[in-house]
């Protein structure tokens, strides 16, 4: 067991921190706050270009597709430093891990360099009005027609679809097969004729949540597909293997800094806040009940971190998850909720003040978190479904 970083990795972390101090300007941060653009204005693009120049995006991806052929640990270090500012610099969540694992040569050459430069952005098209946690019930159809597939159906909560260049789409290719065996994944350009994106505004939209809020997005979407044609070469993995490709992608997606950080940032924030602030002379940091609670939360947060390290260690060794990804996806979101709700009882009435309010603490971060934290236990595999998987796959318990 080795819980440490090498001196080279420590140096990398310092370099990234110095880079951030110099290049992540107020202009960049300002752009991140504009929900409509998805925070991708000129300054942001310039920043990503510079990050790419340093060869810090896709560190663990193969060289032949523009990556660095390095380790996930280094990629994690870079991701972690940027994710703390609400900036995703590739790796988890980008679609790339699934494409690298299951894609054709052509797909890798087509997508990976663009994902590295930030020119390609994927939206995720899994959920449908009648298929959420029970995703295998999805109905969106893809019918083969010569060298193409024709797609018809509706996707729900397609976050980023309004600025993404592509959508990572799950659709049914064989309606007669058992549910899990008739699904395929397509990499569909958003500018294909027949795609319509309509906004869905979230409870964080008025007033907008500050950067870093857990599920602080103001907008997601519903996306409609009407006779959308995609070349068959844009299918990821084998036809009808989409369920398994998708599950693998979701698991790989958990091996990274961003998933874990959304659940533990508030632990740091509240400790740092009570250390530096007080209420008219009274400091919650002196209250024994608060101290006990903060220590409890801190300990839980370490378990979030260690579960992420465990997943990373497993993947680095080339092993497969049995339940570890699901475990992380239960523990971290529930911890995030625990912290968020505890903070409301530490800050009392101040924790209700939203971003636009006078007297709001940290720009309303803690108040907005109350509205978002639980969402991470529903998204990307709900904690109920994740527990089912732990019990069935991890512990071999029988189906009901």
């Amino acid at each position: 067991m080795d819980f440490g970083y090498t001196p080279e990795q420590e140096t990398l972390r310092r370099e990234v921190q110095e880079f951030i101090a110099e290049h992540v300007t107020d202009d960049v941060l300002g752009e991140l706050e504009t929900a409509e653009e998805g925070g991708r204005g000129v300054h942001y693009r310039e920043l990503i270009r510079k990050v790419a120049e340093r060869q810090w995006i896709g560190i663990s991806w193969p060289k032949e597709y523009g990556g660095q052929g390095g380790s996930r640990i280094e990629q994690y270090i870079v991701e972690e430093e940027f994710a703390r500012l609400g900036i995703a610099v590739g790796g988890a969540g980008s679609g790339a891990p699934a494409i690298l694992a299951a894609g054709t040569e052509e797909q890798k050459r087509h997508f990976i360099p663009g994902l590295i430069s930030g020119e390609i952005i994927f939206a995720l098209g899994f959920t449908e009005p009648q298929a959420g946690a029970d995703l295998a019930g999805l109905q969106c159809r893809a019918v083969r027609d010569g060298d193409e597939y024709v797609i018809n159906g509706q996707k729900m909560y397609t976050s980023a679809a309004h600025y993404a260049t592509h959508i990572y789409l799950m659709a049914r290719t064989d309606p007669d097969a058992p549910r899990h065996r008739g699904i395929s994944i397509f990499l569909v350009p958003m500018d294909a004729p027949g795609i319509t994106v309509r906004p869905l505004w979230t409870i964080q939209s008025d007033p907008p949540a500050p950067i870093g809020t857990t599920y602080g997005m103001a907008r997601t979407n519903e996306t409609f597909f009407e006779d959308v044609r995609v070349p068959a070469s844009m299918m990821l993995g084998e036809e009808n293997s989409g369920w398994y490709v998708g599950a693998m992608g979701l698991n790989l997606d958990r091996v990274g800094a961003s998933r874990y950080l959304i659940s533990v940032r508030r632990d740091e924030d509240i400790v740092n806040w009570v250390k530096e602030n007080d209420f008219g002379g009274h400091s919650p940091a002196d209250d024994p009940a608060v101290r006990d609670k903060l220590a409890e939360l801190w300990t839980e947060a370490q378990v979030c971190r260690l579960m992420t390290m465990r997943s990373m260690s497993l993947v680095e060794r080339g092993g497969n998850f049995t339940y570890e990804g699901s475990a992380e996806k239960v523990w971290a979101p529930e911890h995030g909720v625990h912290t968020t709700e505890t903070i409301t009882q530490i800050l009392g009435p101040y924790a209700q003040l939203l971003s636009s309010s006078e007297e709001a603490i940290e720009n309303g971060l803690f108040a907005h978190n109350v509205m978002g934290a639980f969402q991470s236990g529903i998204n990307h595999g709900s904690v109920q479904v994740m527990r089912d998987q732990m019990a069935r796959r991890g512990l071999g318990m029988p189906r009901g």
Partner: protein
Amino acid sequence: MDILPSEEEQLLKNAAREFLEAEVSTALVREMELDEIGYPPALWQQMADLGWLGLAIPEEYGGQGLPLAYMGLVMEELGRVLAPVPLHSTMVAALTVAEAGTEAQKRELLPAVCSGGMVMTWAVTERDPRLIPSAIAEQAQPDGDGWVLNGVKMFVENFNVARRCLAAVRTAPASEDNEGISLFLIDPNGVGVSQTPLVTIAKDKQSRVSFDGLRVTGADLVGELHNGWPVVERMLERATALLCCQMVGATRKDAEMAIEYAKNRVAFGRPIGSFQSIQHLCADMLLHTDGAQLLTYEALWKMDRGLPAGVEVSQAKAFANEKCEAVVRSSQVIHGGIGFMMEFDLHLWLRRVSAWSMRLGTTFDHRAKIASALLDKPGKVRLGLPLPA
């Protein structure tokens, strides 16, 4: 960064499991609950022959000089089968002698520990069970070339069979320079020592020990006079980390028994393990056991690198106290009525894990330490980086 056990670590762990599962049955555990000395000397000797007693003891004193993590992995396996052997108390005392003892003390004690001829224990706790210097009131009065000890130590493990006990006593009032605590090696059979066995939930061997005019000399002193507290702190850290290992091992086995039972026990026409409420309880048992294990391993790793590990040890114990207890309780729930029956083995784990959760620092004690490290030093905190010093 690869937090999974290395190949060598895993090999040792597997070997320990294989040996212990063959040698330690629940019948033996039950037999030793009633036994006068509480452990089978033949098993102890076998463990010595396997080199386990000297795993973490320096090579020049007959040990293997391996990192504490190796000892921890063996402890985890001992916990798994509830092995009735005085290894924990022996290691706690012996590793402290290895760290702070004189050359003569090391030569006398450590080779004997490695070869199986020396059971040891330690005594810190008094009436006030908190493990802090101010809770040590017991006085050692200077007397010629030595000291005379008077007072009571509580919850001393294996005192009945130990040949040496490392006791922390007050030799001076706390001052600006030190806490006034000194460590002495005492002979449990010495003149002026008496003990009363305590009947514990774990049915292990613990005693209330009284010192009435027990004489010790400079040759028995471990570490600096009056300034023994830093040594005690490190002893307690090791003791706590190793106890967490035992808790993790026992808890995981206990959870496995519940999961197995749930797969086979039928109610309402189906295995209870197919009910989602039972499955989710089991998923939580897995989360809690894994969490305790990960925290414990990180603490051991830090100690082995000589890094400050007080916070990590406290995290592991605070978490294990609550979560391991919750796991063994859930396991009882899944077993319904049968788990409550004396003849069914499950309670052997419940009783031990519960008892261990009460020792070497409560959840509140450990969280108070974590809180102090988090809150009482200026500077920002960040997960995964050392706290401000």
